[in-house]
């Protein structure tokens, strides 16, 4: 099952390798090695893998913040070069602009792109949904870690990117808020239909949200396995099928 909307981008990674120079010694880190993935428009892909296996690196490549050492990344047939609002990335740490209030942070994109007027209402509602309306006029350092994460999520979401990249967006939330946010994410994705790639450490979350789960192995980062989750949304975390997928993935991860 796919999302109903149709504004997702078609993302293709073609034998992507990323090697980093290291400043400490005259050596290099092979962060990603020969990654090939095809993400059809509107698909929700969850990525899981050990810490340091190159998940953030992969998202940065798709966002266009770094360029691959070898291989190509294509969005709708065009090679990705540089950052663009059509590929929105929610960073692993929230990185809200400290000099802007929460409202000015979440409206940053529309302000820059001249769509502030039309988006105002919608952004207000989104803030309400994630429970931040009360803190509109606060500054980022006055927010808790989880609140900052939610604000960062909204900030990228309001830009309506064709490809929505999430780097552990719910990592700092308590179990309850987390489940609520997962459902909100799912709702928004189904309404808007943007291609979504989400990195997470939580296997249950990966299975709950993704059309498929990509399991990565570390150093060098490779795609270990791509598992299609053949369950209807909304999924039941306690169903037999769900639990099977979960234990299968945990097994691959070596737990």
């Amino acid at each position, binding site marked *: 099952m796919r999302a109903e909307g149709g504004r997702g981008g078609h993302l293709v990674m073609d034998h992507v390798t990323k090697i980093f120079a290291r400043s400490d010694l005259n050596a290099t880190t092979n962060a990603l090695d020969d990654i090939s993935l095809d993400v059809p428009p509107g698909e929700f892909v969850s990525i899981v893998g050990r810490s340091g296996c190159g998940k953030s690196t992969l998202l940065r490549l798709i966002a266009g913040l770094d360029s691959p050492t070898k291989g190509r990344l294509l969005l709708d047939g065009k090679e990705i070069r540089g950052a663009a609002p059509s590929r929105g990335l929610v960073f692993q740490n929230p990185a809200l602009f400290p000099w802007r209030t929460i409202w000015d942070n979440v409206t940053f*994109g529309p302000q820059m792109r001249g769509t502030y007027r039309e988006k105002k209402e919608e952004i207000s509602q989104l803030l309400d949904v994630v429970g931040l309306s009360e803190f509109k006029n606060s500054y980022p350092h006055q927010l808790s870690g989880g609140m900052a994460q939610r604000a960062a999520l909204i900030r990228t979401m309001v830009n309506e990117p064709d490809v929505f990249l999430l780097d552990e967006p719910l990592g700092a939330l308590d179990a309850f808020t987390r489940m609520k946010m997962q459902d909100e994410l799912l709702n928004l994705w189904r309404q808007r239909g943007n291609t979504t790639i989400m990195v997470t450490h939580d296997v249950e979350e990966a299975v709950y949200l993704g059309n498929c789960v990509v399991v990565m192995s570390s150093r060098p980062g490779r795609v270990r396995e791509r598992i299609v989750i053949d369950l209807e949304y909304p999924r039941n975390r306690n169903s037999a099928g769900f639990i099977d997928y979960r234990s299968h993935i945990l097994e691959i991860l070596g737990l």
Partner: protein
Amino acid sequence: MITRDELAELERSPRTRTRVVLDRLVCALPLAAGALVLVQYYFVPNHGGNVITEQYAIFIAFFMALLFVALFASLFSNAVFRRLRFKAPFYTLVFCIFLGWDYLTLKTGILILPFFPWPDRILNAMTGDADMLLDCVKNSLILLFSGYFLGSGAGLLTGIACGVNKKFDYWISPVMKILGPIPSVTWLPIIVVLASSLFSGSVFLIALGVWYPVTLSTLTGISNIRKIYFEVAQTLGAGGRQLIFRVAVPSALPNIFQGLTQGMSVACTTLLVAEMMGVKSGLGWYITWQKSWAEFAKMYSAIILICLTFMVVNQTLSLLRKRILRWREGMTQ
């Protein structure tokens, strides 16, 4: 919901009864010191043929009246009380300095005229020459701000240009490294010869002095920005000019303000040197002029005015900084 004031009150550590009484007494201390000043002024015999006027008494009494009002208000408002309790020891010291000053000059003549006039004489000099002095203040301020705005504007532009454009930095940085550390007054002799008027020459000198710290701090501010802010902004659709004015400049503002403050102190120094060495107006000129007539009381009154003027200017700047950097409230010390 409780207000900020109530919150502050709740979070303060509890005070004992003696402590409370002591605090109230401290608040009244400046008034006592002021009274002492007046008592000495009128009732201790003057040294030699020293004469006194009413002006000093009025001056002291004015501030005592203000303090009295504050003391009265502190009985009803916690905010006023805290402020007064905080400032009272300092005000007391100020009155004590007046007390000692009167004693050493007016009353005993340990420090002699004409070099050490007592406060009353300086006050008289100030009111006697008020028109002239105000004119000097005006001229000094015009010169100061012409140079300051020019210099800080140029500094901001260079700093931003160097911060965001490597090529610009390549050519400008060496110039800055060579010329920057030279105090701008060094150029005064050349400026006197070259400039079309001493005024424009001095404006240039002040601007030059301000330009360096502002450029440097802007540059530092911009190069210290965490890369991630640019990346976030870019993925959100900001480009070119927006990256400069919506990301680079705002996050460099704390540094920029440091440069602006430093620039102001350089500007004040340069202003006085320029006025003392060449320009025929302003407070610096007034000082040298009165000194040549051995009018020390007038000289001191100009110095006091300089002090007050610069204090007001710096206070304004720091208020502006507080307002603009409000987002850092609670984040830094």
